[in-house]
């Protein structure tokens, strides 16, 4: 088990706002890690720095030994890191099928049509195939967003709030589908999540952010029971029976 993604001393500030303050994290291959924290704690900034959307003020990010900072999102995708988005980033006027065909085409898939059918099947999207992406229900949009990210067979998959905006009874369905799709393929999964039930169920490690810093890092039991995490992330008094 080796570290596939290593972040060292990341700093990022926007004027007076410190979005990342000395963040150092390392992720093992094939691990499933959840990033938690209140809004504005720096989780999405972290994802944005790893994927090249933002350049850290200081620090380094190494993926399989290669330095990522300074590279564009396109190049980083090429290295094998893909992400899904908090607000699904889809091609709204194209059908679900066409959305996936675009991704397959970019990934230079040899039999793009068949590959697309497979993906539709695996994610349960076949019946939405012909619909324009703009008209899909939110849960389906999320699924498509993740499906697009998986087309390129990434080694690291970053999911930004994969179940936010989705009906409570659909959340597990989405996570099951996504996790099922990556199982056994050596993919490292990092997902940002606010729903602690999802966090507990799907990951083996939790990293908690607050004010741009990592305040806890460990197993779900330990982190979710941590006093600071309870104070700054989960909220305490209301959770009498934890």
């Amino acid at each position, binding site marked *: 088990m080796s570290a596939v993604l290593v972040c060292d001393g990341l700093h990022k500030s926007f004027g007076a706002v410190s979005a990342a303050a000395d963040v150092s994290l390392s992720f093992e291959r094939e691990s499933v890690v959840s990033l938690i924290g209140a809004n504005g704690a720096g989780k*999405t900034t972290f994802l*944005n720095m790893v994927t090249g*959307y933002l350049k850290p003020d200081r620090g380094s990010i190494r993926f399989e030994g290669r330095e990522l900072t300074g590279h564009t999102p396109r190049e980083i995708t090429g290295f094998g890191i893909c992400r899904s*988005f*908090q*607000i699904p*980033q889809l091609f709204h006027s194209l059908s679900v099928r066409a959305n996936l065909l675009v991704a397959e085409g970019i990934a230079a898939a040899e039999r793009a049509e068949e590959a697309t059918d497979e993906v539709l099947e695996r994610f349960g999207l076949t019946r939405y195939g012909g619909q324009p992406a703009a008209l899909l229900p939110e849960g389906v949009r999320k699924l498509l967003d993740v499906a697009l990210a998986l087309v390129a067979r990434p080694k690291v998959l970053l999911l*930004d709030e994969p179940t936010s905006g989705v009906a409570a009874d659909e959340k597990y369905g989405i996570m099951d589908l996504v996790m099922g799709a990556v199982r056994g393929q050596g993919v490292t999964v990092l997902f940002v999540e606010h729903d602690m039930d999802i966090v507990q169920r799907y990951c083996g490690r939790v990293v908690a952010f607050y004010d741009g810093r990592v305040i806890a890092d460990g197993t779900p039991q330990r982190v979710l029971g941590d006093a600071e995490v309870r104070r700054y992330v989960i909220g305490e008094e209301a959770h009498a029976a934890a």
Partner: protein
Amino acid sequence: MNDILAVLFDGVVYSSWLFLMAAGLTLIYGVMKILNIAHGSLYALGGYTAATLAGAWLAAGQAAIGSYAMLVAAAVLVGLVMGPLLERGLLRWMYGRDEVVLLLVTYAAFLILEDAIKLIWGVESMLLPDPYSLPGNFHIGTLAYPVYNLLLIAMAILVGLALAWALFRTRQGKLLLAVIHDREMSAAMGIDVNRVYLVTFTVGSMLAALGGALTAPMIAVSPGIGVEVIVLSFAVVVVGGLGSLGGAAIGALMVGIVRSAAVRYWPEAELFTIYFVMALVLIARPKGLFSAPEARKI
């Protein structure tokens, strides 16, 4: 030395004119996110109305000094009539659509107004030389300049200061700035965004018309004067940064002086230099010199 002075002075005169056009345009864009191609028609309307009003005034034997007031009155009239007409009557139905669609809508309005002007005033040129020649000339060294040019510069400075004061010192102005910053948030805070739009567009129209009205005594007012103005104003606004008043001023100065130098030393390249400056600025700063920061999209 004379040469350089001449270039500078000509440049500043031209810049003043450019600023009047650019100020309204950049204001409208900043608040409403609309690049108003009909700005050119409003300029033409200002010129025609000024020629008509001031012409009638002078023809009725009234005091010559009043003709200047007529020029300004013409601009205000055009602004007060055309502003609400265009904003309420046309643009209001298009809000929320793509920026380029709105651009095309203002382009359509421009086409309609061009012919409307022809229908109202005919195709003959109108001349209004008196306000221009009346104050006579003044001298810088051996060069003689019409005093009218000084009036133009003074007007531009006055308008610039007035706008700056109105935007940054008055309550109404601050509301405008808020809407420029974030329309949805402003509306959520209770700002009557529709009214802000109306006021902005009306003021912008007045400024365009003022540009036309003040230019009327210097040219032959005829169909098509609004056409080239549009492209020039855009160049200035883009250089300065869409939505920035200070940018419009600096952009106007840059373009005006460069163009003046070109006219003096290399006349064939006049238009080229203006757009060359624009291209250079955009390469260095893709959003113009003073552009608003953008929020993160993902």
